[in-house]
């Protein structure tokens, strides 16, 4: 919709178009009058039609009036006057009526056409508008999904990080023990290598003794590298990997890792591993972490015990229904009933330096393996932590 100056300008344009067209029709009619008789009907009708079509109703009416006057003046006797002879009146009125009819008809067509066009434009605009709205909604949804994905990723990273921190905290507690584990074979290597050199440096080198010493040095070095491998696999950030492995073997390996810490605290670890216990399907590093955690907790629980042997018993047994049960029993200070209820809460700890993540993480690992981890009081002395796991000896899944 144009307004003000623009609309006036447009109206003037329409009216001048009408005048131009009718003047053109007049000129053509006059020019052709002698050869073709009176063809003005046709030319004026065309001028009215075009004026109405392009200039709308107002211009149409102007063209009709202008044509009527022109026909009255130039083509209707008496010629060169704005009067009409009574004999020409029917003809003249028919002409005027036709012109009026034409302009009305064309104006109506034009209105219909405009309305249609407008309706189409509006429809297009509405469709565009709706499309834009849909697109916005879609974008928002995508952004939301992106956001959620990022949050989930962050959560995943945090969870992995927490697990790693807990793992490393356990490692931190083990550092001294591990230093001992590594240093011990190194000491053996040095002692044996020195012995080898000493036997070779004698006046009469003793090759048999030298060879035996060199062999022992090699054994020591191999043992040191095995320790390193064990530690590396323990602290690696590797994602959970499922494999089938011997449960008892993992227990033995873990007990070996905890041995140093145990002996420094005068704790003896007794293993009672049933040969019926065979394979488990799961992440052996994670399960090793769980067992290590339970062993460390047990050792920790006995540091203040002086009136009885500090004994940590780890058992494995095969149960009905294809279950494997592993239990760690200490003779420590035990767990009071109110603490028992909170043991597996994250960040709950009874230790000054504890993070309170060991047991919750252990439980989530066991549950992820389709098992159960729980604690029981031994009554007078200590507590037993145990977990069950489905045996991996069934048909391969």
């Amino acid at each position, binding site marked *: 919709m144009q307004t003000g100056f623009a609309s006036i300008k447009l109206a003037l344009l329409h009216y001048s178009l009408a005048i131009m067209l009718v003047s053109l029709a007049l000129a053509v009619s006059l020019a052709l009058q002698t050869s073709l008789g009176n063809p003005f009907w046709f030319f004026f009708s065309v001028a009215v039609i075009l004026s109405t079509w392009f200039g709308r109703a107002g211009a149409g009416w102007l063209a009709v009036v202008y044509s009527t006057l022109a026909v009255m003046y130039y083509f209707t006797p008496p010629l060169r006057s704005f009067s009409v002879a009574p004999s020409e009146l029917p003809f003249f009125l028919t002409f005027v009526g036709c012109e009026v009819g034409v302009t009305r008809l064309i104006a109506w067509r034009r209105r219909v056409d405009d309305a249609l066009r407008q309706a189409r434009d509006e429809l297009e605009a509405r469709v565009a508008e709706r499309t834009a709205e849909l697109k916005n909604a879609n974008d928002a949804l995508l952004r939301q999904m992106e956001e959620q994905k990022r949050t989930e990723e962050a959560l995943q990273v945090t969870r992995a990080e927490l697990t790693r921190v807990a793992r490393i905290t356990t490692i931190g507690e083990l550092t*001294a023990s591990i*230093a*001992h584990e590594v*240093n*011990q*074979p*190194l*000491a*053996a*290597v*040095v*002692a*044996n*290598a*020195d*012995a*080898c*050199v*000493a*036997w070779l440096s*004698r006046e009469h080198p*003793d090759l048999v*003794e030298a060879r*035996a*010493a060199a062999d*022992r*040095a090699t*054994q*020591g070095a191999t*043992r040191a590298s095995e320790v390193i491998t064990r530690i590396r696999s323990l602290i690696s950030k590797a994602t959970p990997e499922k494999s089938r492995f011997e449960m008892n073997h993992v227990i033995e390996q873990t007990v070996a890792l905890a041995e140093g810490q145990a*002996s*420094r605290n005068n704790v*003896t670890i007794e293993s009672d591993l049933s040969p019926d216990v065979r394979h488990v399907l799961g992440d052996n590093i994670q399960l090793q972490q769980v067992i290590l955690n339970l062993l460390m907790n047990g050792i920790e629980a006995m540091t203040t015990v002086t009136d009885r042997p500090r004994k940590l018993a780890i058992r494995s047994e095969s149960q009905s229904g294809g279950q494997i049960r592993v239990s760690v029993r200490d003779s420590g200070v035990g767990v009071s009933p109110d603490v028992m209820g909170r043991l597996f809460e994250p960040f709950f700890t009874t230790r000054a330096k504890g993070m309170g993540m060991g047991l919750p993480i252990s439980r989530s690992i066991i549950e992820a393996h389709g098992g159960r981890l729980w604690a029981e009081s031994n009554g007078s002395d200590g507590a037993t932590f145990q977990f069950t796991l489905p045996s991996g000896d069934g048909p391969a899944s």
Partner: protein
Amino acid sequence: MKEQDPVVFVIDDDRMIREGLQSLIRSIGLRVETFASAQDFLIAKRPDVPACLVLDVRMPGVSGLDLQLKLSDAGIHIPIIFVTGHGDIPMSVRAMKEGAHEFLTKPVRGQDLLDAIQKAIASDRGSRKDRQELNEVRERFDTLTPREKEVLNLVVAGLLNKQIADQLGMSELTVKTHRAHVMEKTNAESLAHLVRMSEKLKNSLRR
């Protein structure tokens, strides 16, 4: 090997270290006996010869420091060379106070250990000799009569025969006779020698 040949005792719970140390020490011609634990060492029959003990501080059961205390409580004198994976200061101070001969950190350099062993054995040989001499002195002094002991005490205190005679209410001649017996029984070559032996004996009793 002669029965008087020195022996080195090695106690370490790690078999490979035990064997390495044993081989190393044998290579310089010393006798070695190894034990996996302090308990094994305590119940074993030990030859009465110059010796030293190479001891791992950290062992399951009776620790190295515990063994040191047990030995000194039982009056067993043997130089101890401690070997430790992580020689923290309080631990080494404690060990040294209890008379550790040497404190080495693992892994030990072979030559350092052998040097320490030689020194420890030399020191044990010396103190065994001292102890033996002291025993001989004590045995000789034990043969003195109560009267002779009284005279001895006053002689080594620096009193003249006359003063001793006055104090003990006897003649100067009797003092001279007692004194001659004392010199003879204790094998003293001179008054100075007698004084030295008597001091040694007193010190050993005071300790």
